[in-house]
């Protein structure tokens, strides 16, 4: 078998994304959680041209707290196609579901796998839930939640890289402008510069308009081994590189403008995909712009530019839809944010791009795409997936 022969050494062209299913994003009062999950899963299966019976593995990714269910994949097992299948759940962003699904298929044990992630933010307060991500001894009582944590990172970055509020506004204008071309988007409104500058500070330097919406939605992918993907005889998005890493829990232990877990995970993915110069080699990126400041920080951590130069990429329109390296043609998380599914949406959008199926938001000649996700508070963990056509 190929793995035994190859032993270590990274495997290329081994696993491909062959089916993509997304719901629209926004508030979904008419659907229960499992109905939303069924919709995305069914779409992904139809897109792959597979019946549920043909699926060998299922990986789900969701939050018990936001679902309001102590084991969130119990209900959704059926709607994610897992009835009498080998299924596992990661309590993490959907991109981690893809990682585990990749490992399962790359092992040779399974020929294919469904990856399904969802969040129904409208049923509770995700901000309140995020408070509980702070450990109870030293940090939870300090008024911290997810938004204040990203604000602290953003302010650290502003000081380090001399980034201005105007630069953040440029990121919002770009991503919200792109979202107008994405029919799935939660927010279809590109604010004026004045509107941005008059938006109140929720947690300085984060204005209300810099905070992603809280969306309901589900995303599902079907991945398959090389053999299976080839037999379909159609364009697939090949997983060329994959990397994930975690930093210290306590944010005070590290530099907050650095996104060091992302630096490490991108190194792993670049090595596997043999990417030497990301700005030149990567054609499109879907990044977790949890704030506009973070998008610029991510440019630097991914090596799209030198440290401190993230602002130049946005000022010089390099990452706009017609630029050298378009970032978030989908509109990014600033436009649609089904929280736990958001990172899987990045992968789905990257896969649509490299297979030329991204509609009005399609980037020309998108041969190599990068998708990114964060996990935990203070960007403690990161993951990177590189897809090729």
């Amino acid at each position: 078998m190929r793995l035994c022969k190859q032993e270590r050494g990274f495997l290329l062209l081994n696993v491909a994304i062959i089916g993509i299913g997304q719901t629209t994003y926004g508030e979904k009062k008419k659907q229960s959680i499992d109905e939303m999950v069924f919709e995305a899963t069914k779409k992904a299966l139809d897109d792959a041209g597979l019946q549920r019976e043909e699926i060998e593995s299922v990986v789900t990714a969701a939050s018990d707290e936001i679902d309001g269910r102590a084991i969130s994949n119990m209900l959704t097992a059926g709607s994610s196609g897992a009835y009498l299948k080998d299924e596992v759940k990661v309590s993490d962003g959907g991109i981690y579901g893809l990682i585990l699904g990749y490992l399962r298929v790359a092992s040779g044990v399974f020929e294919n796998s469904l990856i399904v992630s969802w969040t129904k933010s409208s049923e509770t307060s995700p901000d309140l839930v995020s408070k509980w991500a702070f450990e109870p001894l030293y940090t939870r009582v300090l008024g911290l939640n997810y938004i204040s944590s990203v604000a602290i990172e953003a302010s650290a970055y502003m000081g380090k890289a001399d980034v201005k509020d105007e630069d953040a506004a440029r990121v919002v204008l770009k991503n919200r402008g792109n979202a107008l071309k994405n029919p799935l988007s939660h927010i279809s409104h590109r604010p004026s510069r004045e509107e941005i500058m008059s938006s109140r500070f929720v947690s300085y330097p984060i204005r209300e308009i810099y905070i992603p919406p809280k969306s309901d939605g589900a995303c599902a992918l079907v991945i398959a081994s090389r053999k299976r993907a080839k037999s379909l005889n159609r364009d697939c998005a090949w997983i060329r590189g994959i990397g994930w890493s975690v930093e210290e829990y306590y944010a005070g232990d590290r530099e907050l403008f650095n996104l060091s877990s992302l630096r490490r995970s991108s190194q792993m993915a670049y090595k596997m995909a043999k990417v030497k110069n990301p700005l030149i080699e990567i054609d499109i990126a879907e990044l977790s712009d949890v704030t506009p400041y973070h998008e610029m920080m991510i440019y630097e951590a991914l090596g799209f530019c030198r440290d401190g130069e993230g602002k130049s990429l946005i000022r010089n329109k390099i990452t706009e839809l017609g630029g050298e390296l378009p970032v978030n043609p989908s509109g990014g998380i600033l436009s649609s944010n089904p929280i736990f599914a958001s990172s899987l949406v990045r992968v789905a959008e990257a896969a649509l791009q490299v297979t030329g199926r991204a509609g009005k938001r399609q980037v020309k000649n998108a041969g190599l795409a990068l998708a990114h996700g964060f996990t935990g508070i203070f960007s403690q963990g990161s993951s990177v997936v590189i897809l090729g056509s």
Partner: protein
Amino acid sequence: MERELIFIPQAWNIKFNHAAGEVGSAFFRAIIDRKEILGRRCPVCKRVLLPPRSYCERCFVQTDEWVKVGTEGTIQAFTIVYGRFKGLPDPPYAIAYVLLNGASTSMVNFVKGVDLEDLNEALKKIKIGSRVKVVFKRKREGRITDFWYELLKETS
């Protein structure tokens, strides 16, 4: 050492407002308005699903038909709870999965109207195969507790 250990008291209080969805809402509406229990039929395997689901997890298709099921059925499994659990009702109480006439799957609810103080006496009445009927609450509000099961006369 014991005296010096510090404890941090915490309580989770996260509120939810779970959407029953269109299908679930129609199910509860039928209970409120007409005292009817409605199941959903899978167009492929023809199973009538209770609780009503808008899709069949086995055939992986949308369900598209409402089926009014009977308000009588048979106990498939049960327990009588004598232990006290925080946040749950005061014991004793009986819970049973009941296959309602015309349904393909069993639905769980309380069994009321049986004296549970003596387990052995209660077990003569509440057992697998016992026939029960659905009894609706007078004021129904769209909750599963709008109804419960009671034993039919002939078996009790």
